[in-house]
C-alpha cells in the first residue's frame, strides 16, 4: 500500500466521526457515516487475502444498506414534519426505521450476523477500530434521538443481544470471534439503558472502549489469534499475561475491577425505573459471557490443563514495553474507586 494511504484513511476516519457526532442535520450525519464506511474498507482489505476481501464485502453491503436506511428514515421524517433536526425525530415510522438501521450498523441482535465474520476477517488493530470507533457515530445518533425511540423494542433487542452474544461465544476458539460476541453482549447493556438514562449509556460505551482496547492491544502484542496461542504465550510475556487475565475479568464485570461499574449503575437505574425483571434477566445473561471470559482467562495465565501440551513453547524475547497498552490496562483494572467522579463528569 502507498505510504500516504494510511494517514489519509486515519484523517478520514477522524473526520467522519467528528462530522457525525457534531452534526445537527440528518444529511450531515449521514455524510459522516458514509465517510467512515468508505475509509475503513481499505483498512479491512489491506492484505489481499480471500478472507479479508470477504470481510470487506460483507462490511460494505451491510453498512451501505444501513446508511441508506438512515437517510430514508430522515427523508420520511422530513416529508412528514418538514424539518431535518436530529433531535426531533417525531414520525413513528421513521423512528422504527432508524432503530433498525442503527441496529444493523452496530450489530444488535436481529442484525448481528455480519459482525463476528467481519472481525474474523480483519487484522487485530482494524478489529479494534471496528468494535470501538466505528460504533461511536451510530451510537451518538441513537443517543440524540433517544427521547422518541420505542423503549419496548430497544429492551427486547438488548436482552436478545446479551443472550445471543453470550450463548454464541461459548463454542468459539478464535479470539476475534470471542471478542465480537463480547462486543454484542456489551451493546445489549448499552441498549437497555439508552432510553432511560442516555448519559449512563455513553459512560458504559466509554468504559467498554477502554477495556476492549486494552484486551485487543494485549492480544496484538502476543499475536494471539486463537486460544492455543494464548496457552503457550506465558513463556513470552508473563507480566502481560497476568494483566490480560485481570483485563478479561474486568470485561466480564467482576466487582473489584472497572467493568463492574457500568453493570452496577445500569442495574441500579433499571430497578429505579421499576424494571426489576429485565435487570435480573440481563444480569443472569451476563453469566453466559462470563464463561468464555473465564476460559480466556484460564488460558492466559499459567493454568494449564493436566495433560501434555501439543504446542511448541515460544521463545522469550525482550520487547520494549508499550505505553498505550500499559495506560489502557491500568485504566481497565483500577477505575472502580473513581466511579462517583466519573459518573459526575459524564
Amino acid at each position, binding site marked *: 500500500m502507498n505510504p500516504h494511504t494510511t494517514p489519509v484513511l486515519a484523517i478520514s476516519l477522524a473526520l467522519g466521526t467528528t462530522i457525525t457526532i457534531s452534526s445537527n442535520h440528518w*444529511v450531515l450525519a*449521514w*455524510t459522516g457515516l*458514509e465517510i467512515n*464506511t*468508505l475509509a475503513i*474498507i481499505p483498512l479491512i*482489505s489491506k492484505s*489481499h*487475502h*480471500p*478472507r479479508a*476481501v*470477504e*470481510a*470487506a*464485502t*460483507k462490511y*460494505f*453491503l451491510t453498512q*451501505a*444498506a444501513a446508511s*441508506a*436506511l438512515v*437517510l*430514508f428514515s430522515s*427523508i*420520511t421524517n*422530513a*416529508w412528514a414534519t*418538514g424539518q431535518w433536526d436530529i433531535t426531533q425525530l417525531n414520525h413513528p415510522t421513521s423512528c422504527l426505521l432508524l432503530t433498525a438501521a442503527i441496529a444493523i450498523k452496530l450489530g444488535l441482535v436481529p442484525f448481528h450476523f455480519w459482525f*463476528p*465474520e*467481519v472481525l*474474523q*476477517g480483519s487484522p487485530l488493530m482494524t478489529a479494534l477500530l471496528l468494535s470501538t470507533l466505528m460504533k461511536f457515530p451510530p451510537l451518538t445518533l441513537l443517543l440524540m434521538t433517544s427521547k422518541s425511540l420505542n423503549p419496548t423494542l430497544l429492551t427486547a433487542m438488548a436482552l436478545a443481544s446479551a443472550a445471543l452474544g453470550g450463548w*454464541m461465544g461459548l463454542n*468459539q476458539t478464535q479470539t476475534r*470471534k470471542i471478542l465480537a460476541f463480547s462486543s454484542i453482549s456489551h451493546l445489549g447493556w448499552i441498549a437497555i439503558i439508552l432510553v432511560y438514562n442516555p448519559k449512563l449509556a455513553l459512560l458504559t460505551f466509554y468504559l467498554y472502549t477502554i477495556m476492549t482496547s486494552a484486551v485487543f492491544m494485549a492480544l496484538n502484542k502476543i499475536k494471539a489469534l486463537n486460544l492455543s496461542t494464548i496457552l503457550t504465550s506465558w513463556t513470552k510475556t508473563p507480566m502481560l499475561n497476568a494483566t490480560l487475565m485481570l483485563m478479561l475479568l474486568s470485561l466480564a464485570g467482576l466487582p473489584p475491577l472497572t467493568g463492574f461499574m457500568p453493570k452496577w449503575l445500569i442495574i441500579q437505574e433499571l430497578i429505579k425505573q421499576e424494571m426489576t425483571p429485565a435487570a435480573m434477566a440481563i444480569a443472569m445473561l451476563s453469566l453466559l459471557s462470563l464463561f468464555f471470559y473465564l476460559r480466556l482467562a484460564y488460558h492466559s495465565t499459567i493454568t494449564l490443563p493436566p495433560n501434555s501440551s501439543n504446542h511448541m513453547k515460544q521463545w522469550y524475547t525482550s520487547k520494549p514495553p508499550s505505553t498505550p497498552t500499559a495506560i489502557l490496562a491500568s485504566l481497565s483494572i483500577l477505575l472502580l474507586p473513581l466511579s462517583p467522579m466519573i459518573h459526575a463528569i459524564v
Partner: protein
Amino acid sequence: MSPLHLSFCSAFVLSGLGLAFHRTHLVSALLCLESMMLSMFVGLTMWPIENQTPSFTMVPIIMLTFSACEAGTGLAILVASTRTHGSDHLHNLSLLQC
C-alpha cells in the same frame, strides 16, 4: 401521502426487498443499492420544491456525490472478490462463517 411520496417510497422499499431477498450475484446487490440511492435522490430533490426552500437544493447533489463514491467502492470490492473467490456469487463468501 401524495403520489410523489408514494412513488419514491415504494421504489426504495422494492429495491430494499430486492437487496434483502435476491441473494445470488453481488452485482445485483450493488444495483439494488444504487436504485435505493436514486429513489432517495428523487425524494431529496422533490422536498425543496414541495416546501419552497431553495436553500436545500444543494443537498441532493451532495448525496449523489457520496452515492457515486459508494458505487465506486462497491465495484472495486466486486473486482477484488471476483479475483479472490472465482465468481461473484454470494454463496461463495463462506470462508468466515462459524
